[in-house]
């Protein structure tokens, strides 16, 4: 590891600091305005600004689940409501200290958020959206009905804060640091393996699984955090309102919390922050429009979804407006590969035995035996629909085979558990690149390094040293991987601005981040220019030399015959022939069935 660090180009201090400053500038500007506000504004603006801060605290956590993770928790107001009532009851009825109350209130949020997150794992997005919407209605109804506890329709007083936080500005100065803390914490998460895992789950779920990301753990953790910020924000909301009744938790507020994130931009922290401020402010400055406000929110949402999926964040992302250099070449540097892979060789092979996969009545793969030895390139060819990709997917654990098994070094892999493959040393690329379009190239590469992370979510939230060390190391490795596949110059570009061929190489870089012992490539040469195919071939050969077992599914006969040690030909899901490239080239059967020559 130490040797590795020396070999890798350290992210240069100056450029890294420059990037940090550029990223921090808008937040510092907002903070400066927020701090200066008491100097020139009256109490009314203290209330509005506090409200924005309180809503933001709820949005901040939710943003990780909705904006980053793509989980459509529409009715998150439910947890804010629960937090508001819990705090009011604890302070008002049980006489608890309002500061201490934050602890049980936060705990309720963690538990509630985690429970809701667990349901998200079982449900499709629309079902989940409906469930959360229904839940938020039910919570209000229960607050109405449970009169002995909640005061029913008469409600109960919110927790009053002691001096000096009992004036509008005092309370604001209590909320502001909490809001700023949420910005900082969610930025930490965003730029961590958790943030990247969420993006991958949102936009490229199968790639997330192939990278070893365990969706349940990530989603439940993030929802627990979102629950925490929601209930804490609920307590602040109750204090701000001074008195809560069920009708304070309006449907408009449900919409506001959710839409602020989408207007702000998915996968951004700054965007939803600005979105929250905007939606809190809008009805105040445009009072004639006030009754149209919900209509306008909805309209904005529609426009954003259709026209600017990246939201405000995309509109203010000037960095990615600059055109990328045209006529750029992908020039891999195979010499970089040794530093990226484990030095220790292993002779284990992937063994596929008697594999059968069926879709309903269709038998896609029938009784297939296949070996992918270390340090060799194994080709898998065949006509369309012959079962090549299905085989790859079964090895990767996306399908549960009807028969047979997949083993590495004699140990059978759990069928259908795709997230376990990374640990077995199997990495892969996809026929259609599965990348996070809105994330940077280097972030996409770093998704591949998810399993290497040890820092816990809490360490990440608080940017404790271990998290920082891991991130710096991962980043350096990702740069090296990008360098190896010839994309280092594009590291900071948005991934969806890349050409198709560049995205294919990026998938390889992501796979390399896993220090794979086996690499499954699904038509990596499709759409590549001739020169690029040659360079891809060189890369594959170097991987073989370093002991990686490569399984290559490919239509490009030239590439296959050039790099493979062993070629297997599939037809109608069965092994038609197998042998060295030369033998396959000679085979009449193969020529007639597939090569067509």
């Amino acid at each position: 590891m130490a040797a590795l660090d020396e070999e890798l180009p350290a992210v240069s201090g100056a450029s890294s600091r420059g990037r940090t400053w550029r990223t921090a500038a808008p937040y510092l500007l907002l903070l400066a305005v927020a701090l200066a506000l008491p100097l020139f504004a009256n109490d009314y603006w203290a209330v509005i600004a506090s409200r924005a801060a309180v809503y933001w605290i709820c949005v901040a956590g939710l943003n990780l689940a909705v904006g980053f993770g793509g989980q459509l928790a529409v009715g998150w107001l439910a947890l804010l409501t629960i937090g508001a009532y819990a705090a009011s009851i604890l302070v008002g009825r049980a006489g608890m200290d309002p500061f201490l109350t934050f602890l049980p209130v936060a705990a309720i949020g963690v538990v509630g958020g985690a429970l809701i997150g667990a349901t998200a794992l079982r449900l499709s997005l629309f079902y989940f959206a409906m469930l959360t919407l229904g839940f938020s209605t039910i919570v209000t109804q229960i607050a109405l009905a449970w009169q002995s506890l909640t005061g029913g329709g008469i409600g109960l007083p919110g927790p009053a804060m002691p001096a000096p936080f009992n004036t509008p500005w005092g309370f604001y100065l209590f909320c502001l640091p909490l809001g700023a803390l949420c910005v900082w914490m969610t930025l930490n998460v965003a730029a961590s393996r958790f943030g990247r895992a969420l993006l991958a789950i949102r936009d490229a779920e199968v790639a997330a699984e192939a990278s070893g990301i365990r969706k349940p753990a990530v989603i439940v953790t993030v929802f627990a955090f979102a629950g925490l910020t929601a209930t804490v924000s609920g307590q602040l909301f109750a204090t701000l309102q001074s008195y809560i009744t069920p009708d304070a938790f309006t449907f408009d507020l449900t919409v506001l919390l959710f839409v602020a994130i989408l207007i702000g931009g998915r996968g951004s922290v700054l965007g939803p922050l600005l979105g929250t401020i905007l939606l809190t402010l809008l009805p105040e400055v445009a009072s004639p429009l006030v009754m149209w406000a919900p209509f306008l929110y909805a309209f904005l949402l529609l426009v954003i979804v259709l026209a600017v999926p990246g939201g405000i964040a995309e509109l203010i992302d000037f960095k990615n407006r600059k055109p990328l250099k045209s006529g750029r070449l992908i020039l891999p540097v195979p010499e970089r590969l040794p530093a990226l892979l484990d030095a220790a060789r292993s002779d284990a092979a992937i063994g596929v035995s008697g594999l059968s996969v069926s879709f309903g009545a269709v038998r896609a793969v029938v009784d297939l035996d296949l070996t992918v030895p270390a340090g060799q390139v194994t080709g898998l060819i065949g006509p369309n629909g012959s079962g090549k990709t299905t085989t790859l997917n079964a090895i990767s654990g996306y399908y549960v085979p009807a028969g047979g098994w997949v083993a590495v070094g004699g140990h059978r892999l759990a069928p259908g558990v795709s997230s376990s493959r990374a640990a077995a040393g199997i990495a892969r690329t996809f026929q259609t690149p599965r990348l996070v379009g809105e994330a940077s190239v280097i972030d996409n590469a770093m998704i591949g390094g998810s399993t290497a992370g040890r820092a816990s979510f809490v360490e990440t939230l608080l940017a404790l040293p271990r998290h920082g060390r891991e991130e710096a190391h991962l980043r350096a490795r990702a740069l090296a991987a990008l360098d190896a596949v010839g994309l280092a110059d594009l590291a900071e570009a948005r991934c969806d601005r890349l050409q198709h061929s560049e995205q294919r190489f990026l998938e390889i870089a992501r796979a390399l981040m896993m220090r794979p012992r086996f690499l499954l490539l699904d038509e990596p040469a499709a759409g590549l220019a001739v020169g690029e195919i040659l360079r891809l071939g060189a890369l594959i050969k170097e991987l073989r030399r370093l002991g990686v077992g490569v399984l290559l599914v490919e239509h490009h006969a030239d590439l296959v015959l050039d790099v493979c040690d062993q070629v297997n030909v599939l037809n109608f899901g069965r092994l038609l022939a197998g042998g060295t490239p030369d033998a396959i080239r000679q085979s009449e059967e193969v020529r007639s069935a597939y090569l067509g020559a």
Partner: protein
Amino acid sequence: MLGAIVASGLAMGAVYALVGIAYNVMFNASRAMSFTAGTVGMMGGVLGALFIGRFGLPVPLGLAATLAACGLFGVVTEIVAVRPVLKSLDQHLYVLSTLALALMATQFTAIEWSTEPQPFPRLLGGVGGVLDEKFWLPLAACAATIAGLEYLHHYTLVGRAFLAIAEDNYAARALGLPERNLRIAAFALASAIGGLAGFAAGELLLAYFANAQLLAFYGFVPVALGGIGNNRGTIVAGLLLGLLQQAANFIVGGVFASVAVFVVFAAVILIAPQGLLGGQRARRV
């Protein structure tokens, strides 16, 4: 007593089932769920009251105008909120775009129509009590819709094309079916069905903007229970939901009835996300 619960339960159940069918018809043609299913239910009531109650159109004409307007809204839904986001179906952006459109239509109604429930005209008059038209009209609408859909699916080319697309839209496109036109037709049809639900239930639910949210949720419950895309399951589940809800209203009262329905809904979708009667599952890789 039992008669009253059964009558209103079946009537509400029929409305939920029809809204559920609207969800299904849209889903089968596009693989997208649309929040506007509830909106058209609300529009059926409001437009019926507008055309017949305010403008004084005769009932058949008012019904035709209502269904046409709802159908048109369906076309708009397809063009504005569904088609643009279909290419990235796995990002599920339709959830947001249809939610946005549904909220816009509901808010517009609230502002331009009224935020208070408005009367819906008597359509036929006649007996009151358990056999009153307000109870059997939704059931009749539901029966007519089932018969109409059966006829469509079994005896017309368009209907068979719908079935083909519902079965496998990739294959259907490969067969050269005009997928886009069929989708527009399906959205128009679904929205007209939702409009019919709201119209038939006008006397029960009144012409009220807030019915949109109510129907969007309670219309979805039978879809989730019966299995997505499965009309038979939806109808059975819808009628059961209506009965359960009315019985709960009576036995445990307002708030707890909503809680009871929600708990049943949550339990079912968590235990059997594909619905009790089986729905469709999409392939991922």
